[in-house]
């Protein structure tokens, strides 16, 4: 029997598939189904500081700004309810319940805006029992005066402060858009990050050509998107000491195997289970086991990183040669 148990962020996980942050991990039913299907850990949806601010503001608009202008409605137009679950309360309740009910590590995800918000909420997540905290950092440096090193410094400082604030391991979900990703990864490790999650898929705005309006678009990932994180995992494995996770384009057992081969501790799934349901995880694990049996791997630990840049015979394949090969191997179709 092959051993699927491994570790991620220093946490024992029963399998190398982790449920990434998605609407499925936002409900207890979804979480239970994922755990039943065999995920080794779960990442809850992000707690968005911006969302909390926005909701509070809406509440003020609704309750306060409509009050006090009409003598017949001098206390406004809505009843005052006992609790609006403003702030992170509802999230913390969900987290606490997940920790209580599930027997796998529960990782909380946080997307902050202000440094105060990051630290305050990180502390609250840890206090509510999160096994680890994944920092979901979203910053687009759109200002022409934004200096690239400042963007990196800010990120490193932020992660350092969060890591210092909480006792649980801190992972960083990164965007691929850094000039010197390897260097950044090292700096994050030095700052206290226990793991790197590659990569964040930002929702990209689209343009509706009928209305000429900018509209948000939400497209689930496809397997070919795994290639970008796969490369960087292979590059970083062995170069940094943190845990690594691949979170884009893992759709089947093969995808999991590739992730592990490249050097990830775990492969994270979201789009595939949203599309096919949590039971997909069980078949992915079956497939992984079959593949490992066929290839004579005893354990995930043995498998991990065996095709990383450090381990392969042609390390350049993950860097420029890979690019050259792609270009040279392309054959132009002959017109019929």
């Amino acid at each position, binding site marked *: 029997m092959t051993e699927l148990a491994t570790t991620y962020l220093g946490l024992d996980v029963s399998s190398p598939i982790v449920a990434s942050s998605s609407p499925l991990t936002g409900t207890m039913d979804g979480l239970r189904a994922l755990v039943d299907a065999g995920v080794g850990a779960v990442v809850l949806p992000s707690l968005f500081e911006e969302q909390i601010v926005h909701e509070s503001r809406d509440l*003020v608009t609704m309750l306060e700004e409509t009050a006090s*202008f009409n003598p017949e409605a001098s206390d406004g*137009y809505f009843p005052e*309810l006992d609790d609006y679950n403003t702030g992170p309360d509802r999230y913390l309740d969900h987290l606490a319940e997940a920790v209580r009910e599930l027997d796998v590590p529960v990782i909380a995800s946080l997307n902050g805006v202000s440094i105060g918000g990051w630290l305050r909420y990180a502390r609250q997540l840890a206090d509510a029992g999160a096994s680890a905290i994944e920092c979901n950092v979203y910053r687009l440096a759109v200002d022409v005066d934004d200096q690239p090193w400042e963007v990196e410094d800010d990120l490193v400082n932020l992660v350092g402060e969060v890591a210092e604030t909480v006792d649980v391991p801190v992972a960083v979900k990164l965007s691929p858009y850094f000039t010197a990703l390897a260097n950044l990864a090292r700096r994050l490790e030095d700052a206290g990050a226990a793991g790197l999650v590659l990569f964040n898929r930002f929702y990209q705005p689209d343009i509706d050509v009928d209305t000429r309006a900018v509209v948000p678009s939400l497209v689930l990932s496809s397997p070919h998107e795994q290639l970008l994180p796969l490369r960087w995992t292979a590059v970083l494995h062995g170069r940094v000491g943190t845990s690594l996770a691949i979170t884009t384009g893992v759709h089947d057992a093969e995808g999991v195997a590739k992730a592990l081969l490249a050097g990830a501790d775990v492969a994270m799934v979201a789009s595939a289970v949203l599309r096919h349901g949590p039971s997909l995880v069980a078949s992915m694990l079956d497939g992984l086991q079959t593949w490992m049996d066929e290839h004579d791997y005893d354990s995930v630990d043995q498998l991990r990183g065996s095709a990383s840049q450090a381990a392969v015979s042609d390390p350049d394949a993950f860097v420029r040669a890979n690019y050259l090969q792609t270009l040279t191997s392309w054959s132009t179709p002959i017109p019929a």
Partner: protein
Amino acid sequence: MTRASIDGNEAAARVAHALSETIAIYPITPASPMGELADQWSSSGRTNLWGVVPRVIEMQSEAGAAGALHGAVTKGTLGTTFTASQGLLLMLPNMFKIAGELTPAVLHVAARTVATHALSIFGDHSDVMAARTTGWGMLAASSVQEAHDMAAVAHAASLESRVPFVHFFDGFRTSHELNEVDLLESDDLAALLDEQWVADHRLRGLDPDRPELRGTAQNPDVFFQAREAANPWTDAVPGIVAGAMDRLADATGRSYGLVEWFGHPEAERAVVMMGSGTAAARQAVDALVARGERVGGLVVRLFRPFPTQALVAALPASVQRIAVLDRTKEPGAPGEPLFTDVATVLMRAVATGERGALPLVVGGRYGLSSKEFTPAMAAGVFAELDRDRPRHGFTVGIVDDVTHTSIDPDPTVHEHRHDGDVRAVFFGLGSDGTVGANKNTVKIVSEHTDLHAQGYFVYDSKKAGARTESHLRFSPQPVEATWLIDEADLVACHQFGFLDKVDVLARARPGATLLLNAPFPADQVWDHLSVEVQQEVLDKALQVWAIDAYAVAREAGLGGRINTVMQPCFFVRSGILPADEALAAIKASVETTYARRGPEVVARNLAAIDRSLAALHRVEVPAHVSATRHRPPTVPPDAPDFVQRVTARIMAGEGDLLPVSALPVDGTFPTGTSRWEKRSIAPEIPIWDPSICIDCNKCAIVCPHAAIRTKAYDGDVLGALRDDFPTKPMKDRSLPDHHLTVQVAPDDCTGCGVCVQVCPATSKEQVGHKAINMEPAAEHRDVERDNFATFLDIPELDRSSFDHGNVRHSQLLQPLFEFSGACAGCGETPYLKLLTQLFGDRMVVANATGCSSIYGANLPATPWSVDDAGRGPAWSNSLFEDNAEFGLGLRLGLEQERATAEVLLAELAGELGDGLVSGLLHADQADEAGIAGQRDRVEELRRRLAAMDSPRARLLDGVASTLVRQGVWIVGGDGWAYDIGYGGLDHVLASGMDVNVLVLDTEVYSNTGGQASKATSRGAVAKFAASGKSGAKKDLGLIAMQYGNVYVAQVALGGNDMQTVRAFREAEAWPGPSLLLAYSTCIAHGVDMTQSMARQKEAVLSGYWPLYRYHPGGEDDAHPFHLDSRAPKKPVADFMATEARFAVLQRSDPERAAMLRELAQADVDERWRYYEQLAGVVRTAPFDQAEDTRTTEEEPA
């Protein structure tokens, strides 16, 4: 003992909730908050004295609430309800029954004016006085503390005596005054009650194990005797109430009497009165006694059964002259009710020898509709009593220059001032948080310092840009003043623009502090004041401080909420607390107050407090007036005489100064007056870019305030316009060679932005730039004022020269509903405006009480307007519940007058000429040309009648106008149509008469503050449905369709404007009853009102609000039901998630929200399935065309 700062409604509701098991409620100002609190408390599981959560149920009307109360107490539970004014009147039939059956019950009344020549939401005793014959006990509270204590006495006395009780206190003055209350704890309440009384009541309840029969019909043989059989119970009440008051005194130390004497023990002159006005009488008495006058007063607390013996005993034998003050008017009576009772009691006391000599007793009226009653006025009454022949039937508080009833206040008597008193008056905007901050200040001071505090708040009648006044008193002594402050130590003006609108400084005492929120640096503030304000500052030697509070609020991330910026400034400048103590207290309060709003809100408010004081600066006041600018006149000099004399005074806040002679005697006012009220409240106004405009006129059709106007005109007109006037050639084949102007009314626009949101035309180069764009008003106002003046001079198109059946053309018609005081972005008013464009010159409107009657006819001005020929909607509001019947009456009257005209025309045909008569009787009035032709004939008829010297000719002249086709429009909200007025509406629809009903459906009682109605959808959170409404919305359209001959349409202007215009025209053309259900976005939905129309579109797309027309006798006669919207394309949850009324439940109770959301989707699916089947139904309802009062059959265009 717990001391809390609460208002009178909460004071009464706390006791009512604690001592009741079943609570039937219905909203009515100013009593609604009692029902809301009861519902809220029960929703959150608060229990009564017996550990059970009281059951609260909203009924369809006060009559329904009284019926439910009657049933609940007949079953043997402890029942209560809350009401006021017309609501109490609707309860009267049940009140007689409940009292006749000796069943305990308590009704808490925030006493309010009963509508007569006008509606008034404010306080007096006309409602409770109308209930005095019901047999209920009546107990009056005169302060917030008393509203708490007397509530408890009423419940206890009712249970013990079996006589039901009305407990009343003055609407607004007490119901809405914030003051300190020592709260009754459970033990105190328990001490008032004997559990045996509860058990006995329970035992009398209907129970099949102990079957009984109640409610027999009795005959002349026994009814009378049976009526007298209950006498001992009534007789026992005064003793029982006195006993309850004694137990209350034992438990709390607060002692009350059935009547209570104050003043000189050997007074010669006295007043007798009830309610909050007694506070003014007490202060006057104190002042006069201090001068050596022998005066006093008697407060009556128990009014029914009248405490005869207690009154005779309490009135000193020395009293020779008495003025009984009634807060009500009973025209034609020998005196008002309290006067009559007191006079009768004294006369009998003298006759029986209980009292030596009969004093001279006169009666007078004060305080109607919350009219101020001050110590000076009370002192004036004592002065009147000192005259040789004191007048009976006097008035005080007004100037009556017609029947000369009024007595003058005594200017030498002022509000008593204790050492350490601080009085402050604040002028704010409804939305800027001023009132909220001041309520908070009162609570901070009462609950955290040794000072006592009182807050009272005054609002103008506008919903957009409303002005508020807060009157705050702080004192080392309990505050018992029940009138507005007129000598303030501090006046704060939170909106700089108010200085040009009202006399803000009039309430400042000499040497007071003036605190200004000014959008300028402190050293520039003086230069921005008008001559009048500078002069007043100098005359009163005011100290002026200024802060740019909006800048501070913006920096702190608070947007336009300046409350926490201004609050510290007040505390520090008023000196009621040391600065650091004040800041700490405000911060502590912010943390509690905003805790439920979330940590970010708390943090931002704390930041605002920290920045506030540093931004507050002293304004150096020069020795002389330096300004040259005068305060602008309230209305322009060309306004009509009535507007100048009356309307403008009311606009300027000087309505109290108008004498009796200035007011119409029967409540009839001219229309077309809102145009004179230039409020200039919009910070941004829409500016037209003709280069992009596609002539769709959507901006105009959606404008809630008729502040976007469109006009089409020909080349001749264009030639006469000045060159820089914005114009564009029209692309319209039916109006060739015409030009178009889209014009904003810059001083009437509220800046809601709905026009910009709906504008479909965008610049090719820049997507965000539309054909109409919001821009800073300050930069454009002057130019747009000139443009608007020019625009108004452009002649209107001849109504008969083009088709009105599409959106573009409908907006070329002059709106006769303009510049209402409705909320910015109101979803109702665009429908009314459209109605007046299509039919305004020949419509009679019956308007149910509600938002539409308030923005439609709350003084000073009305948006209902007139065209150049002087024609326009003729409008009236009767009541809330009777609007359909009222409209039907108008229709009956119209038809009867026309019938009279027809008889007379036939009779006088010989003299008038057969041709004219035939033309008049058989005119085709199906279109505008036909109507214009008939108007010409009626003119001709009048000319010929004028030459005839006969009474029959005069009679015909009086009814001739009905020969021109007129429509009766019955307008109201969903509270009226779905709930309180439904029975009448149903009857009117069933009558088959030609009336048009427009229901402005906001899905809540909007005007009274957003209480649930049967139009409220499942899952929505509303007042009275604090846990989310569990039942589905009533399908009123479907019910009306069952008649078969009723035209029914469901419309949403933002969903499909074409369909709306079509439905309006079809409804008007249909010669039977028609019902239009118009979806109206409302601030009670918790949405951004700029998106008002977008919300309607979403409602339609999600199937939440399907569009349809049920058109009997239409083009497709066999298939009357037409579904005009497409099958839902998205789940209704998507729509619900974006409106706070639904979304807030997701936050507060996600599980219930999910359950209700699922049911809401099922509601939508099932309704759609049903409607789709209806669209295939073949049905032709028989309709008696002979009943059609028009002379031609009409088909819609």
